């Protein structure tokens, strides 16, 4: 510390009059205001892998929506003259053993797979938040009863429930969604309950109680916004899980029934021709893998972006 930095400033008696600090605002905040979500977005953006994954997901989704219109082939039209054609410029992904365009089928199958993934996730999260929120917020006997129910559901093998439901209600997309969600909400409910239990003891919730707030205000204005981050991360990991589960069930013949198709169903039919036409298995599997990978990478990025500990 020397004086030479300040040599440009001329020192005179004037400058040494005490003016005090009355006029100066020592409470001023200079930083620009940044909301929680802006901050999350900023951190998510800086994670190149996660952004790449999100872009890839966007491309896959767009392909599933518009793909069939680009290729110009209907997914269910059988063309006996063009069976098992290898990928070429007319049939980008080739055709299957009934001569249907595989590219269109992968796109249409993707629609079903992704829709099942998203719909199941939303239903699962809604039930999970509801049950977990009630258990965590009210606690006591209600919590005990709900937790026992969750344990019972969790202790029955999932496959048995899914098969039982399909025997009782028949096979189809709705039955499948129903079967998948009924067994999967328990983990989310546990997660939400844990978060709520933790938040409930925070002083800002106690402050709300002391202000006379109703339970609905506390739940919707305070608890849910604060568990939202965790829920979003849970959702991004749940979608690929459902897609994979649907694919698995369709693959073993318990899922989507023809003429409807999905990535899993496509893989199942292609399996028989694996020795001769491996591309028929390759494309649906590629899409399943890419989707799963991107969802997981994006979820990781979101997880980091939403972690309050990593905040700077």
């Amino acid at each position, binding site marked *: *510390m020397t004086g030479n930095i*300040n040599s440009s*400033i001329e020192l005179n008696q004037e400058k040494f009059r005490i003016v005090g*600090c009355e006029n*100066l605002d*020592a*409470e001023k*905040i200079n930083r620009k205001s*940044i909301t929680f979500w802006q901050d999350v977005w900023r951190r998510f953006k800086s994670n190149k892998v996660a952004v790449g994954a999100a872009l890839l997901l966007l491309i896959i989704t767009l392909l599933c929506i518009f793909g069939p219109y680009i290729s110009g082939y209907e997914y269910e039209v059988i063309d006996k003259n063009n069976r098992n054609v290898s990928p070429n410029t007319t049939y980008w992904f080739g055709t299957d053993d009934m001569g249907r365009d595989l590219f269109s089928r992968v796109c249409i199958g993707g629609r079903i797979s992704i829709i099942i993934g998203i719909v199941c996730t939303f239903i699962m999260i809604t039930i999970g938040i509801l049950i977990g929120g009630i258990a965590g917020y009210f606690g006591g006997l209600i919590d005990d009863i709900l937790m026992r129910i969750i344990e019972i559901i969790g202790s029955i093998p999932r496959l048995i429930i899914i098969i039982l439901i399909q025997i009782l209600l028949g096979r189809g997309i709705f039955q499948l969604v129903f079967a998948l969600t009924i067994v999967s909400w328990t983990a989310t409910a546990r997660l939400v309950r844990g978060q709520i239990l933790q938040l409930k003891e925070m002083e800002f919730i106690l402050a709300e109680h002391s202000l006379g707030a109703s339970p609905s205000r506390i739940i919707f204005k305070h608890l849910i916004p604060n568990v939202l981050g965790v829920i979003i991360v849970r959702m991004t990991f749940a979608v690929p899980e459902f897609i994979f589960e649907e694919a698995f069930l369709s693959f073993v013949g318990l899922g989507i029934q023809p003429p409807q198709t999905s990535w899993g169903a496509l893989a199942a039919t292609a399996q028989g021709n694996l020795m001769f036409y491996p591309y028929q298995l390759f494309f649906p599997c590629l899409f399943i893998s890419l989707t799963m990978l991107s969802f997981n990478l994006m979820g990781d990025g979101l997880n980091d972006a939403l972690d309050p500990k990593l905040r700077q």
Partner: protein
Amino acid sequence: MQKILEVKDLRVSFHTYAGECQAVRGVSFHVNEGETLAVVGESGCGKTVTSKAIMKLLPEPPSEIKEGSVILFKDKNIVNMKEKELRLLRGSEISMIFQDPMTSLNPTSKTGKQIAEGLMIHRGMNKKQAFEEAVKMLETVKIPNARKRANQYPHEFSGGMRQRAMIAIALACNPSILIADEPTTALDVTIQAQIMDLIKELQKKLGTAVILVTHDLGVVADVADRIQVMYAGKIVERGTTDEIFYNPKHPYTWALLRSVPKLSTKNKSELYSLKGTPPDLVSPPVGCPFAPRCEYCMEICEEAMPYATEITSTHEVSCWLQHPMAPKVEVPNELMVGGEINGAS
């Protein structure tokens, strides 16, 4: 006296969304062998960052020790040390205790084992020797039933006990410097008194130099040999304990001294209070950082940074009031009165 640690022009920045936050802005000081140096300042003044920088404990990124910073420990520059050298240094030559003893102890390992670990790594003891030494250390920090306690987990200890265990871990390898970062802030007053007495006693016994980081000037009065006051990433005043308490020169030191609560003040009278908050170091002010909160602020204070003026060989202050052109300002009355009353009682 031998200088054991010398910090020259230390600059540390954090990279945040709002830009570069210059937490430490050119700090130079030294620590002598066996002395206690207190670093005092409000939260966010850079005192903790400085002490962590000495151990190179700051995560990079977001933090960055700037080019040109020098931390000399026994003639070696810590800033340039490799991770391997640092591991040898930490715990054996320089060790640190933190504000929250629970988060700095490993909850899944027995306390005795945690003390022994350091001994095995740094002093090459075998398991049995190290454990015996650990028990001895627990006795040194006055934990009753040391042998039984050594086989317990940290959660079985109370807050004060944990801080004692932390001190035992820190001192086990007989380091030359102990950095204590707000060691008593999280503790109750009676425990705080116990811990401060313990640190004082052990220092005399072992001859360790102590860097005591705190926001409370009241705590350091009977422990520190020298005090340096930090504000907004800079040292604004330093001196021996007596110089800081009996002949303070910087208005910020006055403010800190005046805000120490005294039992003798009249009930419900207006207490002296420091207004406002420290500046945001993302855009540090060009002038004296304390100017917006200073009663004696002059025009020059907002325009240029004051330079350090030497009062005695040990006492140094950075304030424009020391400039020959500046008006003469008396030390606030209540500081003198407070001193007299305290002296008399």
